[in-house]
């Protein structure tokens, strides 16, 4: 079956611009996660959705970052007033159950964001 998909695969933008990154999870997965992976680092947790609601957004670095999942499926990560330090690969993952059960997360290929 289809895995987690993310679009676009690459995004180049200018400092100060607004960007949206999309994640399409595996059908039926109720949990969805966003991570950011900087060069040479492991993925860093940003936000977790259970259904439509953000159950844990403690990893969002500041108020320029926002994510939604209005129908409990597709999610969009939104970054306002982008900065060069936002350049990274943004990963999305989904899981069939709630985070508390520590089930395997299925990762998408990521969106590489470059802020010039």
């Amino acid at each position, binding site marked *: 079956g289809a895995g987690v998909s993310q679009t676009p695969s690459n995004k180049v933008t200018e400092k100060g611009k607004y960007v949206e990154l999309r994640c399409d999870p595996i059908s039926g997965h109720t949990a969805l996660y966003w*991570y950011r992976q900087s060069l040479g680092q*492991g*993925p860093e947790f940003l936000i*977790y959705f259970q259904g439509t609601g953000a159950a844990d957004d403690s*990893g969002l670095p500041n108020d320029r970052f926002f994510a939604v999942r209005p129908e409990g499926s597709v999610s969009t990560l939104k970054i306002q007033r982008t900065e060069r330090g936002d350049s990274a690969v943004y990963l999305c993952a989904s899981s069939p159950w709630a*985070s508390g059960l*520590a089930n*395997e997360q299925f990762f*998408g*290929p990521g969106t590489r964001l470059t802020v010039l």
Partner: protein
Amino acid sequence: AQSVAQPEDQVNVAEGNPLTVKCTYSVSGNPYLFWYVQYPNRGLQFLLKYITGDNLVKGSYGFEAEFNKSQTSFHLKKPSALVSDSALYFCAPYTDKLIFGTGTRLQVFP
């Protein structure tokens, strides 16, 4: 603060030899423990996890990991390495979220 240490940036091993990729962690409570692998141009893939029970956990592609509570370690092992195992490996304890290490690049030479 919660942290994960993968002390080796890179591990080199000849094909057919055993391999070990080290991981130690410092997190509160009794975390679940995961290993993920990242192949070039592909997403992170789950390898194995420890929840409870036997300290030796078996996972995908012949990999296994040994949990040591007293040393707070969860080292990844494989008895006989393949060239196709060459990839980036991440250890990740789980409390209420996954905490990834910085990764260890495994290079298996023919």
